[in-house]
């Protein structure tokens, strides 16, 4: 694979995503972990752009960085006493490590053995964003799941308020 802007971008974004992920799970300082999470999410967003899904990339930034990460960071800051925790992993971390490695090995095996060197079957149709929007509200496509998702969000909203208030 020759060096093209795309490959370079892919490399950088993957490094962001994976490095950020690593930071999230190993960093002792939670605020830094949150920062790494943001970095990782950025990487994913970049990969989305490479996959020609700009809408998802924007939503990724908006929802994850703009909302979820902020939420997480605020929680970290509100539960401030936990900053005292020194050791960041519990007693079973070796088990966890083994499980994680095995999981990666399993997935990797399937991926490498099944999807080696596959390239897109066709180009993305123009105005795919418009199509996406149309599909979400078409009764012949995703209308029902879409409504369900909105109800779920409403329920989560109310539930979160009820749980978190004094």
């Amino acid at each position, binding site marked *: 694979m020759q060096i093209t802007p795309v490959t370079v971008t892919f490399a950088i974004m993957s490094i962001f995503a994976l490095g950020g992920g690593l930071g999230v799970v190993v960093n002792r300082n939670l605020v830094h972990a949150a920062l790494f999470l943001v970095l990782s999410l950025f990487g994913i967003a970049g990969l989305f752009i490479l996959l020609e899904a700009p809408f998802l990339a924007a939503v990724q930034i908006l929802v994850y960085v703009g909302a979820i990460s902020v939420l997480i960071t605020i929680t970290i800051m509100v539960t401030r006493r936990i900053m005292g925790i020194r050791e960041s992993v*519990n007693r*079973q971390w070796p*088990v*966890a490590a083994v*499980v994680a490695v*095995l*999981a990666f090995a*399993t997935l990797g*095996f*399937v991926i490498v*053995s099944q999807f080696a060197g596959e390239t897109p079957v066709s180009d993305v149709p123009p105005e795919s964003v418009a199509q996406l929007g149309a599909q979400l509200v078409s*009764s*012949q*496509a*995703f*209308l*029902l*799941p879409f409504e369900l998702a909105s109800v779920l969000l409403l329920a989560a909203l109310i539930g979160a308020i009820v749980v978190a208030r004094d």
Partner: protein
Amino acid sequence: MLFMNMTPDMLRLLVWLIPVPPLVAFFVILLFTRGSKLVSDLVSVLAILLTWVIAILVLIAAILTPHLGEEPITSSIVWLPLGESLATSFRMGVLVDPLGAVMLFFVPLTASMIFIYSTGYMASGAYWTEIKGGEGGHGTTHAAHDEHGGEVIDSAGRRLVKFDASAWKARFMAFIALFAGGMLILSVADNLLMLFIGWEIMGLCSYLLIGFWNNRVYANQPNRITPMIAGIKAFMTTRIGDVFMLIGIAWLYSFTGTLNFRDILYNEEALHALAATPAFPNLAWLGGLTVAGAIGLLLIIGTVGKSAQFPLHTWLPDAMEGPTPVSAMIHAATMVSAGVYLLIRMFPLLSAGWVEGGPLTAPMTAMAWIGSFTALFAATIAMAQRDVKKVLAYSTISQLAFMVAALGIGAYIAAAFHLMTHAIFKALLFLGSGSVIHAIEHGEEHAHHHGHHFPIDFDAQDMFNMGGLGKRIPVTAWTFLIGGLALAGFPFVTAGFWSKDEILADAFAHAPVVFYVLAFTAFLTAFYTMRQIGLTFAGEPRTAAAEEASQRDWRMNTPLVILAFFAITAGWIGIPAALNPLGVNPFHDFVAGTLLEHPEALPFDPLPMIVSVFIALTGLAVGWLVYVARPLKAGQPDPLARALGPIYTLLEHKYYFDEAYDFLFVRLFQWFSDKVVYQLMDRGLIDGFLHFVARMTEWIAFRNKDFDTFIVNGAGDEVAQGVGNLGQAFKYVQSGRVQQYLAVAAAGLLMLAGVFIWAFFLR
């Protein structure tokens, strides 16, 4: 009129809207208007009436549609699109074909009536409830009525007070609204899964409603089943059927790749494939059971549970613990009908590979046997019941069995016809009985105000406490009479006659055995109906309560009258062509369209009709002679008891089925869990081992404590310590740490993944 210039799209939209109002009403009541009984009544009744109007519009449009069977009113949306194209995704939708139209005729009708009736029925009444704990408890067994709400002690030593039965009325209206919504979903569903959703909604509601008076107890009868228990019982029993049904549905889906009725039942090759493929190729002893057969049997089990057929019938009589409108709802309009509706709907599948006159398929044979047996069995029980509602309950089982048997012998249209008429007149009977109970309770009130004393276990539902109500509640009496005659199949006038006669005619033509059984059952039916009418309305009052009984609630009387009207007329649309002034059998011709190849009507045969006329009349006559001509005096035993002797006791105790089940399953499992698991394994093995070890060490230590105390004690301590540590070590399995559980789960998942890889890639 509106439906004349209704575009197809509007029509489809209307079909979608049919189940909506009750469901909305459910949430509105539960969320907002809970506080006010009046508003809740209005909301629910308006909702169901709206549904009724919509349903009537759709019904008329459907009847006006030519060849409705070929081009039914249907529309569907994608449930959840998966994979690369939207075309292959699973669809949810509505369907109104002739059969669905029949459902749309009687379900909203009966439901609306029941709703209106409930607003009156649930408005008053009181029952005993137990006070837990606390001090005090003065009062005697007969002090019940002296000061109202006063506390009494019953023979079981429980402290009871009267509880206002109308306290939770709003909730009740909400539940039946949800119930009606479930039934309507089921009626308009165009696929098995959606049907199953409605089915389960009703299952839940039946639990909620049967156990509605969940704090009710029966004075002096600590062993009598309470509403709470009855609800659980109904739920559990129907669950058994539902599980099998779900398996059947899954099997069907995995085989055909769709659950849509039209796609399966109206396409030759699918049915052929189903009927051709053996279900268990490697199980020869099953005698080449086809997939269609196997799935059919599973679905039948579902119906057996839902429609309370033998052997899963026991929940239904106990469901009588619920408020009477619930009994009417569950038994007439909706739930039990749903079971039979499922069978009728799936009939092409059940009869796949069956040709008119040919050998019956496995499911049909099963239905024929179950149906005819249950019919007779339940009818005999019904003869000996004292409780006015239990009689109806067993008669319901028996009538449903009629339909099942009819399907078993291929009498498709007769079954649908009887389903409709039965729903109407059985709803009428239940509402009537409810009004009777109400009257007796009012009578009890008045009589007590006039200084009468009743035992605290006075049962307002016991027919032997009634009598002579005909003059006191004429509306109820006449409508009940009409309903009873319809049930007994009083010739040429009532709806029940024509539908039952059609079943009998079919049976006579196809399966003589079934015919004889059903004919005899019809005789019993006529008899116990007359017995009930006689005991309830004829003669002189046998108690003070009956003496002063009264019921003048228009909310309860109007539905009775309306239903009585339909109980007469609903049958006329199905009069056989030969007798019909129109020269055709409209119902037959209409519903026949539902099937792929229309069953042609039987050539009219006078013999079965004569037989059924004769049977009905004799049954009624015998009942008349025994119970009406010489009405019972107070305290006089049931003449039937003298006639039948020990059999009567047997019947009275429902063939001891509850006891048998109790012994077979409940006790058995209790015994197993107690003796085997607890005593033997827990106490015996584990504790025994520990005790043994401990005692042994102690023994050794005692023996040798003179010399060598040190080692042996050490060893003993070690062993005891070891045992302790073992326990300590093991208890950590249950650590309460979610992450440990997760780790185990993940490890298990990985193992599965490994197996998967090995199976699909490495092998």
